[in-house]
């Protein structure tokens, strides 16, 4: 568990960095428990052009070719409201939003 003041580091895939007009990692303030859902809520609030590109806007379901990694673990199939690893919550490790390897 972490306090509201901690900075969460998020890494976006290249196409979404271009869309959001950011370079490198994104730093977010997340209040309350740090979960996938809370991180994405904060990300979409800061960068509304990302709405719908990572998860469905109505159901919140992760898009099929998006993956969530952190601390060398695949967290894609965790519940959206499950707490993220402490290292992510305190900003020691980034939360990686990844476009799955596929296509050409």
């Amino acid at each position, binding site marked *: 568990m972490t306090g509201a003041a901690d900075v969460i580091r998020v890494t976006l*895939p290249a*196409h*979404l960095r271009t*869309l959001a007009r950011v370079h490198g990692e994104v730093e977010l303030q997340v209040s309350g428990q740090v979960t996938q859902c809370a991180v994405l809520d904060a990300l979409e609030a800061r960068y509304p*052009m990302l*709405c*719908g*590109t*990572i998860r469905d*806007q*109505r159901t919140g379901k992760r*898009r*099929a*070719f*998006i993956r969530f990694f952190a601390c060398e673990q695949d967290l894609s199939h965790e519940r959206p409201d499950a707490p993220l690893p402490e290292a992510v919550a305190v900003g020691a490790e980034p939360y990686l939003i990844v*476009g*799955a390897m*596929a*296509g050409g």
Partner: protein
Amino acid sequence: MSGVRVLVGTRKGAFVLSSDGKREKWDVSGPHFPGWEIYHLKGSPADQDRLYASQSTGWFGQLIQRSDDGGATWEPVGNDFSYQGETGTHQWYDGTPHPWEFARVWHLEPSLDDPDIVYAGVEDAGLFRSDDGGKNWQELPGLRGHKSGPSWQPGAGGMCLHTIILDPSSPGRMFTAISAAGAFRSDDAGQTWRPVNQGLRSEGIPDAGAEVGHCVHRIAMHPSRPSVLYMQKHWDVMRSDDAGESWHEISGDLPTDFGFPIDVHAHEPETVYVVPITSDSHHFPPEGKLRVYRSRTGGDEWEPLTRGLPQEHCYVNVLRDAMAVDSLDSCGIYFGTTGGQVYASSDAGDSWAPIVRDLPAVLSVEAQTLP
């Protein structure tokens, strides 16, 4: 001096091609949105600098981009395409009911007189409208909710609404076409719809003359004569003289009547263009010769246009939204290929030259005539 802007959507980005009225030298801008599929982009007839683009990938879904400066800069606008009311089902490939699922926007059709109003034709087939420049989208559910909806089936390319035509003489009248459901008409600004497929015959469906189920590839209309429609169907080139109430075949002496795009000369409502493709199993031109065919008689009698087009070893396709005309005095015609070429003719098709040769596969071409 007048000019032309050609908007090109490709598998890996958008390109804006610009020229003066001579159409001899072209500036190429792009790729915009590199790496994304751009199914379609189109300018508002009411504001030449207002453009809309459909941007998507399988990874990140659908975005709509808007430009207010003729494509120099773009801003993402709304991308929530939620079907209204009961989702319902259509028929899946195996014959079972399948819930409607939004996949992408195939076609954007700006209003004829208000740059903030734009329609979107989507897969799975549905029609959406925005009244605020693309920020918010509302479905016009009367189309998808037609009683025949549960029987609609996808074609090989998905169940897409790919054609939207607004009748300039009758503001409430619209036409849409869906693969593989057919053509539909509304007379009340999209609130209610009915199939307009009488006269179509499709051997690939159990009842060749059925009310719905036809794989219409494209419909074109000349704005001065909106009751006349031209259609490239999966097979057959068709014509209606009564706003879709009935259709008759005008394939005439074409070498094959399979194809995707169809368009009409800007100043001659009886001059029509198609690009014959060998067959539904061979999506390339007959004999490896890329030929546009022109009819100056509203169909039936066709002439091949070959000057400047490759006449050997050419195995590209021209997709349904990849042909357009400008309205300069000498009508310009443009089409893009799956091989990445965009060809232009500034003399109504008599001669052609490539503007660009090596783009990604071209999905759509639109032309804007600039004052």
